[in-house]
C-alpha cells in the first residue's frame, strides 16, 4: 500500500484545522527562531575562536592588559619582532573602538601602516568596491569591512564621523576573518593622532608566522624577547586571543546555548500539547477510520505524520525568519574591539530542521500510541 496517497489526507487535517495549526505553527516558529539565533551566536563563537591546524596568526599584546585602551606598546617593537625566527611579517596596529561596551554595532578602527597591504599581511582580504590605491592616497581614507558598511549603509565616497573620527570610505573589503568584516582599516598615523597624540604607540602587533607548527614556539620567542623590557608582551594565537578577550561574552553565549535547547523543548511541549488535544478532539474520527478498516498502525502513522508536518513547517518558518534577520542585520557581537559574527550556515539550518522533525516525531509518539490502542466501540460510546 503506497503511503503517499495518505499525505493529502494528513495535509487536509492540518490545513483545515486552521486555527489550531496556525497557533501551533506560530509557537513552533517563534521557538525555532530563538533556537536559530542562539545557534547562530554559537556558530559565530566557533568561527572566531575555533583553532585549526592552519592558523598562522599571532597577536602581540601588552602583558596583563585586557583592553585596547590600556594596551600600549612602542611601535618600534615591530622591527625586533620581525627578527624573531619564524616570523613572516609584522603589522603594528592601533585599535580604537566606537563603543567600549558590548554591542551589536561596534566599529573597530584598526590603524595599520599603508605599506602593510603590499607586504602580504592582507592577502586574505578582497576589495569588492573602491581600491587600495585610493585608500593609500588619502590619510583619512578607510577600508570598511563588508558588515560595517552594510550595517551603516555606507558606500565608497561617503564621509562619516564615528565617535569623533571622521573618515572617507575608500573601499569595501570582504574577508573570511570575522575581525576584518567588522573593522575600518585606516592609516596608522592618522589614528594615532585622532584622539590624544599617541604617535609611536600601538595597541598590538599582528604577526604572521611562516609555518603553523611554529605558532607556539614563535609566540614564546617574542615574549622572551621583551620579557625584561619596560613594556613586556603577551603573545597569543589570534583565536585564543579572541577567546580570552571575549571570555565573559562566551560565558553568556554558552549559557544561551541552554536557552536554545530550552526552545527545542518548548517546541516539543507545544507540538505534543497540540497533538494530544487534537487526538482527544478526534477520538470519534479515528474510531470512524478504524471502522472503515484503518489499522492501528496506520492511524498512529497518520498522527505522527501530522505532528511532524506541524513541527517541520513551524521550524522552516522560524529558521527562515532567523536567516532573514541575521542576513538583513549582519549583526556582530563586539567586545574589546573583537567581533563575533551572528551568522549560521547551512549546517545549522539542516540541524534545526532535523531537530524540528525529530521533535515532531517524538511529540506524536505518545498521542499516536494512545489513539491506536483505543477500543472502537468504547470510543463511540464515549462521544
Amino acid at each position, binding site marked *: *500500500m503506497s503511503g503517499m*496517497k*495518505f499525505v493529502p*489526507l494528513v495535509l*487536509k*487535517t492540518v490545513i*483545515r*484545522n486552521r486555527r489550531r495549526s496556525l497557533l501551533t505553527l506560530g509557537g513552533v516558529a517563534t521557538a525555532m527562531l530563538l533556537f536559530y539565533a542562539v545557534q547562530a551566536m554559537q556558530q559565530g563563537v566557533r568561527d572566531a575562536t575555533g583553532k585549526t591546524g592552519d592558523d598562522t596568526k599571532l597577536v602581540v599584546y601588552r602583558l596583563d592588559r585586557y583592553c585596547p585602551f590600556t594596551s600600549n606598546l612602542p611601535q618600534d617593537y615591530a622591527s625586533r619582532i620581525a627578527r624573531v625566527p619564524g616570523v613572516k611579517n609584522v603589522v603594528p596596529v592601533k585599535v580604537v573602538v566606537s563603543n567600549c561596551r558590548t554591542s551589536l554595532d561596534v566599529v573597530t578602527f584598526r590603524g595599520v601602516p599603508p605599506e602593510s597591504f603590499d607586504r602580504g599581511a592582507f592577502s586574505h582580504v578582497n576589495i569588492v568596491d573602491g581600491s587600495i590605491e585610493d585608500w593609500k592616497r588619502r590619510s583619512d581614507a578607510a577600508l570598511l569591512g563588508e558588515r560595517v558598511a552594510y550595517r551603516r549603509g555606507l558606500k565608497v565616497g561617503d564621509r562619516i564621523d564615528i565617535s569623533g573620527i571622521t573618515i572617507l570610505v575608500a573601499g569595501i573589503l570582504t574577508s573570511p576573518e570575522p575581525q576584518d568584516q567588522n573593522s575600518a582599516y585606516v592609516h596608522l598615523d592618522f589614528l594615532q593622532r585622532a584622539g590624544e597624540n599617541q604617535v609611536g604607540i600601538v595597541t598590538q602587533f599582528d604577526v604572521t608566522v611562516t609555518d603553523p607548527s611554529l605558532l607556539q614556539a614563535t609566540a614564546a620567542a617574542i615574549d622572551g624577547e621583551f620579557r625584561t623590557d619596560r613594556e613586556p608582551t603577551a603573545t597569543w594565537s589570534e583565536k585564543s586571543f579572541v577567546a580570552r578577550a571575549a571570555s565573559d561574552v562566551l560565558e553568556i553565549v554558552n549559557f544561551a546555548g541552554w536557552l536554545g535547547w530550552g526552545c527545542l523543548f518548548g517546541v516539543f511541549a507545544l507540538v505534543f500539547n497540540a497533538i494530544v488535544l487534537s487526538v482527544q478532539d478526534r477520538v*470519534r*474520527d479515528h474510531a*470512524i*477510520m*478504524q*471502522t*472503515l*478498516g*484503518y*489499522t*492501528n*498502525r496506520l492511524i498512529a502513522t497518520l498522527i505522527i505524520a501530522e505532528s511532524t508536518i506541524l513541527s517541520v513547517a513551524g521550524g522552516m518558518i522560524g529558521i527562515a525568519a532567523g536567516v532573514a534577520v541575521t542576513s538583513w542585520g549582519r549583526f556582530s557581537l563586539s567586545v574589546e574591539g573583537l567581533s563575533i559574527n551572528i551568522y549560521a550556515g547551512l549546517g545549522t539550518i539542516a540541524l534545526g530542521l532535523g531537530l524540528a522533525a525529530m521533535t515532531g516525531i517524538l511529540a506524536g509518539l505518545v498521542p499516536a500510541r494512545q489513539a491506536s490502542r483505543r*477500543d*472502537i*466501540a468504547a470510543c*463511540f460510546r464515549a462521544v
Partner: protein
Amino acid sequence: MAFIECRNLTRTYTKGSTTITPLDDLDLDIEEGSFTALMGPSGSGKTTLLNLVAGIDTPTSGSLVIGGVDIGRLSRAKLARWRGENIGYIFQLYNLVPVLTAYENVELPLLLHNLTRGERHKKVAAALELSGIADRHDHFPRQLSGGQEQRVAIARAIVTNPKIIVADEPTGDLDRNSAAEILSLLRRINVELGGTLLMVTHDPKTTQYAGRTLHLDKGKLLEKAPVAEAGSVALHELRPGGAACPE
C-alpha cells in the same frame, strides 16, 4: 451454511464490580443478500450484535463466523483489514469526518485499497450518484442537512462494495420524509448491490423495508420473522471490474 452464523455468542462488559451482558448465548443465522431489521428496547443488545458483526467489537465467548471466517479469532490488524474489505457501516449520527468534504469522506475507505486515483474517482462518483448526493460532493458535513449527511454516510458505506452493510438506527435522527427516503435507498442498495444488510431500528414502521425482523431483549433473541426474498440486480459500477461511471 448461513452467511452469518452466531453460536452461543456472548458479550460481557465489566464496569467496576458490575458485569453487564448485552448479548447472552445468542444463536442466529443470517442469509447472504438478506435485509434484516433488529428491534428491541434500549439495552437489549442490538447495537452490540451489530458491532460484533461489523468487527468493531469482539465476542467474549461463542463464535461468530461470517463468510466462513471466524472473526472472533482474527488479530486486531487482520480484523481491521477484514472490515475494510467486507463491512460498510452506517451510523445513526452519520459520523462523517468534519474536515473532509462529502467526496473525500466517501473516498476515505478506498484509500486502503490498491486503486489508482482515477479508479477511486469512478467509484466515489458512482456511490454519490446512487445515494442521490452527487451534487453536494464538495460540501463539508457542516454544510449539509441531516438527510444529506446520511446519504453521504451511505455512499461511504457502499463505495467499497462490501459484503455486509450494517446500519445502526440510520433514520433515528431524521424527520419522517428524510427517513423514508433513506430507508428506500437502503432497500434499493440491498436489492441492486446484493449485499447483506443488517439494520438496528426502534421504529416498527421501518421494518416494512426489511425482509426479516428480529427482536432482541436482554441479549436474547425473542422471535424470528421469515426470510423474504431479496432481489439481486447488479449495479455494475460498484462491483469489482465493473464498467466506468460517468465522471
